[in-house]
């Protein structure tokens, strides 16, 4: 019998199809484990039908889809599974919100959002896949979003 590297969870959220190597960044974006007491399991470079992927499982906590959608920035193909009694109760693909606030640093060194001002970085989402965002302040569009995650 094949042994599962990560056991199924009874209740909680499974984030599947995360682009390989990005699971830690996903946790960072979701501010996990800070503020969460749930057990979190992470699998990196798992073999799937479409190549390697990462998986994150969060026990006893159903993440708010609006919150989770932010991870579409780095994994536009990720899926969210809400698990209840070991069954998939709900499943959806991530979709970027209209605005991304406080997650990505502007690539423009002279953008006011990079100065010592009491504001969070703020980007308008101008394309879902590939992810394209535009700074609300200086209108610059960073190419390397993953590298700019705060």
């Amino acid at each position, binding site marked *: 019998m094949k042994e599962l590297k990560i056991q199924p969870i009874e209740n909680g959220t499974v984030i599947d199809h995360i682009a390989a190597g990005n699971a830690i960044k996903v946790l960072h974006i979701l501010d996990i484990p800070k503020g969460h007491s749930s057990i979190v399991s992470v699998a990196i470079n798992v073999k799937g039908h479409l190549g390697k992927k990462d998986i994150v499982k969060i026990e006893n906590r159903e993440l708010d889809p609006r919150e989770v959608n932010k991870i579409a920035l780095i994994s536009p193909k990720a899926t969210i599974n809400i698990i209840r009694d070991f069954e998939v109760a709900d499943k959806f693909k991530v979709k970027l919100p209209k605005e991304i606030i406080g997650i990505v640093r502007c690539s423009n060194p002279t*953008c006011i959002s990079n100065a010592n001002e009491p504001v969070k970085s703020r980007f308008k989402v101008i394309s879902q896949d590939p992810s394209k965002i535009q700074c609300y302040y200086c*209108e610059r569009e960073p190419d390397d979003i993953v590298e700019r995650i705060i």
Partner: protein
Amino acid sequence: MNFKGRDVISIKDFSKPEINYILNYSKKMVAYAKGERYTDLLKGKVMSSLFFEPSTRTRLSFGCAMNRLSGRAIGFSDPSKTSQKKGESLADTIRMADSYSDLIVIRHPQEGAARLAAEFAEVPVINAGDGAGRHPTQCLLDLFTILTEKKKIERNKVILLGDLKYGRTVHSLAYALSLYGVELTFVSPKSLQMPKEVIDECRDLGVKPVSTSNLEKAIKDADVLYVTRIQRERFPDAEEYNRVVGTYTIDNKLLQNAKQDLIVMHPLPRVTEINPEVDKSPHALYFKEAFNGVPVRMALLSLTIGGTL
């Protein structure tokens, strides 16, 4: 159309009908801007003029515009004599100006500063240039100059020349001219070409700009030649600046190949890119363009503070 309380941060915040409205309203301001007529439209109103970066025309023309409308201006043009020197944030400076005035005009070296100011101010904020970013009032006065000289903006052939990479006026202007479907030609040294995102914006609006480094050829059938200074202060290193400065000079010899009614515009200040001999030619429009900053800014002050002629 109601512009009362509206911020003027980027030309992109305005639709083409709104831009047309502002330009037409600016025409009404010309006689007042020249001092030929008097109005007390903004009597009792105060404008904060916060210039964190050097400026001649923009600052003076805003001051002039407010005075011509019988309003008053407070502010500074040397941030080293303000609490910014003590480390005060821009947000806090804006909160103060907000409580002292009916409108804030800001020029700042960092991109996005005006957008940030608008977040912290209740009163309208007008962007008078933010770093290498936007300069919407310059854009409007450029459109106004083309409109009043050529009687229309559409169907003109416009050359944008010089520093198209760092020049803040040309980015806004390329976008705005594309709204009117003009034929655009970008002429610059290779290292100072128009950024791709600006070209993409023009294309999204149905305009297919041509990029070239051959000014002599481009000038033959142009209606408007918009010249910009190669800005030393925007260059990351002096070596790159020295390589490209002086690449193009507009002189009477070059203009012999141009159409008789070609107008030469420049946001000023100029350094060497336009030979002073051109000043007396009928092509030279840049000083009139600088004057046009007054009626256009009068229109914006009046519309955003409230109260129209």
